């Protein structure tokens, strides 16, 4: 049985729900784990503003803010007390903070989110807990795709 604690003010489910996209494998693991720009191991605690351009994997604890132009993977045992901004994300751990994902956000069954969620597309697995507002708008994601393809044409 689905059990969500969701106080939803506005939900736009314009995008289709896909279970997992190319960056994640069938088990919900981050496929390019070894290629991630930054990996925070399960025994490590980080405080501050964590800003990057590449993929970030968090398996440990993080307090502050997390922002990247690429993908974020939050592991099952991770505890994040931070706002999260990324292009795409897979969340399996605990997050206390707002999440803003430009394109696709996958929330795994072990995820526990307290905060507002904003993304282009979303999938939520049975068992996940979310307390906060969820805004899903594919328009944002589409705009980014169009902009990218225009840039590619120019090149």
């Amino acid at each position, binding site marked *: 049985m689905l059990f969500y604690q969701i106080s939803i003010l506005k939900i736009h489910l314009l995008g289709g729900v896909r279970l997992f996209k190319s960056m994640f494998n069938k088990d919900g693991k981050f496929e390019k784990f*070894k*290629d*991630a*720009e*930054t*990996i*925070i*191991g*399960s*025994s*490590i*605690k*980080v*405080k*501050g*503003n*964590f*800003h990057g351009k590449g993929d970030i994997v968090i*398996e*440990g604890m993080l307090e*502050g803010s997390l922002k990247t132009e690429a993908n974020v993977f939050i592991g099952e045992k991770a505890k994040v007390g931070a706002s999260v901004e990324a292009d795409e994300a897979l969340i399996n751990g605990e997050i206390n903070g707002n999440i803003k994902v430009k394109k696709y956000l996958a929330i795994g069954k072990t995820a526990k989110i307290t905060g507002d969620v904003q993304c282009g597309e979303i999938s939520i697995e049975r068992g996940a807990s979310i307390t906060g507002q969820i805004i899903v708008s594919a328009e944002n994601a589409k705009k980014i795709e169009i902009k990218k393809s225009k840039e590619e044409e120019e090149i």
Partner: protein
Amino acid sequence: MNTYIYDDFLNKGRYRRALNKVEIRLTDLGLNGKIIRLGSIKNVKEVIQAEIKNGVKTIVAVGNNATANKVISAMITNKAYGFFQKDVLFSIIPIGDNNSIAASFGIKKEEEACNILLARRIKQIDIGIAGNNIFLNKAEMVSEQAEVKINEDYILEINKKTPVKIINLNDDAKLSLGQRIDPYDNKLNLIIEKKPGDTTFITGDDFKISGQGNLILDESIEVPLPVEVGLIKEKINIIVGKDRIFI
């Protein structure tokens, strides 16, 4: 013209045989040059400066990690080097224990080092700095209480006994994610491997470390905490072998 810098410890009798082999091989290959013994000089920096001004092409540290560290430190901190940097090469002939720098260059034995000198395969790499000291391979510590501030943005807290490595040039082929360490990328990599599957990997160029304990540079120099670890970009031209650990 080559200049060979022999470390103090090579005066011991047990290294005589290895040195003889090296000297014969260098003569055979036509690579012999001036020999400077560190034991007999007080100011290494001055001697190396004079060599660079006199037009030396290759400075070769004969000894171990500590020798390489001393020679490079003396090379890069003198004024003449800044001017002639592109023309002066560095290499190592490893003798004795503690030779991980040579191993990362792909130089395992002293005679092999002579052949590598002849082949002159050149790479330009970054150099790490920790306080007033330099390192080529890595700065490492095992601390129970330390903080690492990275690029002034965030702090990594270490509360349990944790091995922390800040690596410029990897010397450990078995290190998880070691293949991603690039001595040309103008970055250092912090790696913490507590157990299999629990790896931390962070890239940066400024690491401020505070807490208890010492930082050990290139397995040879101890620097007490607190210390700031950074990088000098593309600072040295080295002669390497085919079997080096990096690209």
